[in-house]
């Protein structure tokens, strides 16, 4: 029985994987047909074969490295700031029910605002370089991290705390062995959400106002009408984003298990 059901599940998983691959293949075929047969302007939609050739060229030449370094550096700095700030502040707020009542709705309301609207202000304050991207990315990813940290620490089951206290747990014991492990799964999903919005906002703001970075490169290619190469960079960025998200999700799943 068990064997049959895992077998079935595996077949289901394989089938949905096939549908996903088939869908992507269909999009590429339609793209190819649109570019070669249906006469869509090459400036709007370059031939996928040309895009592929450009991608190979980009990877071979290594010309992407400088822009990738800029973007990843901004991401790392922004995420480090928002994790430090969000987790610390979230923890402090979670210690008092009054603070939770004040700050949780406030953070949630700010989180719902498209903070990217303030990009011009960030540029005025921090300039066109990486600093404005770091500040924006940190500001945007701070909120999901702080909110989930508040929720994680604020909703620890009282019975665990009571049990620990009855056995003589000190404040440090309680934090290290009860509060942190109880809150960790919720905090980790906050970190994943924060990472995603930091990545999106940094690449997005690079396309709007910047001097370097992958987003900047894409806009630059668009403005010089090198559409095939621009598409190749878009594919490259998508691949980088997918890899980073897979890594972060993997770390999250591992953290949950421990």
């Amino acid at each position: 029985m068990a064997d049959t059901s895992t077998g079935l599940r595996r077949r289901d998983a394989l089938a949905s994987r096939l549908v996903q691959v088939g869908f992507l293949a269909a999009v590429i075929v339609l793209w190819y047909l649109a570019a070669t047969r249906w006469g869509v302007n090459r400036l709007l939609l370059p031939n996928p074969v040309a895009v592929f050739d450009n991608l190979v060229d980009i990877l071979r030449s290594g010309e992407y490295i400088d822009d990738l370094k800029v973007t990843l550096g901004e991401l790392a700095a922004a995420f480090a700031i928002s994790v430090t700030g969000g987790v610390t502040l979230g923890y402090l707020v979670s210690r008092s029910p009054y603070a939770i009542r004040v700050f949780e709705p406030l953070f949630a309301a700010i989180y719902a605002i498209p903070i990217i609207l303030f990009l011009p202000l960030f540029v005025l304050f921090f300039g066109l370089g990486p600093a404005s991207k770091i500040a924006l990315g940190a500001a945007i990813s701070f909120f999901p991290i702080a909110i989930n940290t508040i929720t994680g620490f604020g909703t620890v089951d009282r019975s665990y705390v009571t049990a620990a206290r009855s056995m003589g747990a000190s404040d440090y014991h309680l934090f290290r062995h009860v509060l942190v492990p109880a809150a960790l799964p919720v905090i980790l999903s906050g970190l994943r959400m924060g990472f995603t919005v930091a990545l999106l906002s940094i690449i997005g703001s690079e396309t709007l106002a910047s001097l370097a970075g992958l987003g900047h490169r894409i806009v630059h290619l668009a403005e010089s009408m090198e559409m095939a190469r621009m598409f190749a960079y878009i594919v490259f960025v998508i691949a980088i984003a997918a890899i980073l998200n897979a890594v972060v999700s993997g770390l999250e799943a591992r953290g949950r298990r421990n």
Partner: protein
Amino acid sequence: MATAQAAIKVRGVSHQFGEEGEQRFVRALADTSLDVARGELMCLIGPSGCGKSTLLNAIGGLMRPSSGSVDVMGKAVTGPLPRDIAFVFQESALFPWNTVIENIELGMTFQGVAKSERAGRAGQALEAVGLKDFARHYPAQLSGGMRQRAALARALSLETPILLMDEPFGALDEQTRMILGEDLSVLLARSGRTIVFVTHSLGEAVFLADRVAVFSARPGTIKQVIAVDEPHPRKPEFVTSEKFTALRNQLYGLLHDEIRKTVLQSGLGAAARQDAGPA
């Protein structure tokens, strides 16, 4: 009961939740006194909401009663006493992120047991409750009965003279409950611990207890204490003996009226209070 020997002395304990006039105001315990001798197993039984668990928490220092005093091993209780008292809660309160063995060792870490001693004591405790093969399992991988065994092992490993158990088998099915009760009786007969055991089950109370304290309806206080004169460990045959049946019936008689009162309080009582309006 010679007072000098008492492990637990409860004197005139009353407790209320909230302030008079408030919606949530509840008088849970009224002027309750009780002595539990060293090595004795005392069962607390009564209608729901009668304050049995409140009294247990007051003894364990998990809450301060509104008035009255509690002494444990000759000391006034003002907070948790991890060296004297270990708890087993209804829902095991094992930490789900730790394995069974980690849970047991963590309890000893909290209590301040030296690292070199922890593994040995955890192994003994697991052996005693018959969970040796499940040391590396997580609580979620165990049945309800096994989880309570693990919680009991955690409490035993703390080697406290007193064990407070708050309906530890309350969430289990009848068969599991019976087996756990028999095992507990054997285990505790050897250990010489003082135990206060809160239960809803008349049979469980008679089977386990040296004495049973019967609570009245809210505000709860001890109505009568009944001695069960039967040596530990108790044999399964005890359940079918006339003595068991007689004691069980006596308890039933004492409780029946109180449970009726509780039902009336919660149903008609609420309506009557509303009629009266703000006084």
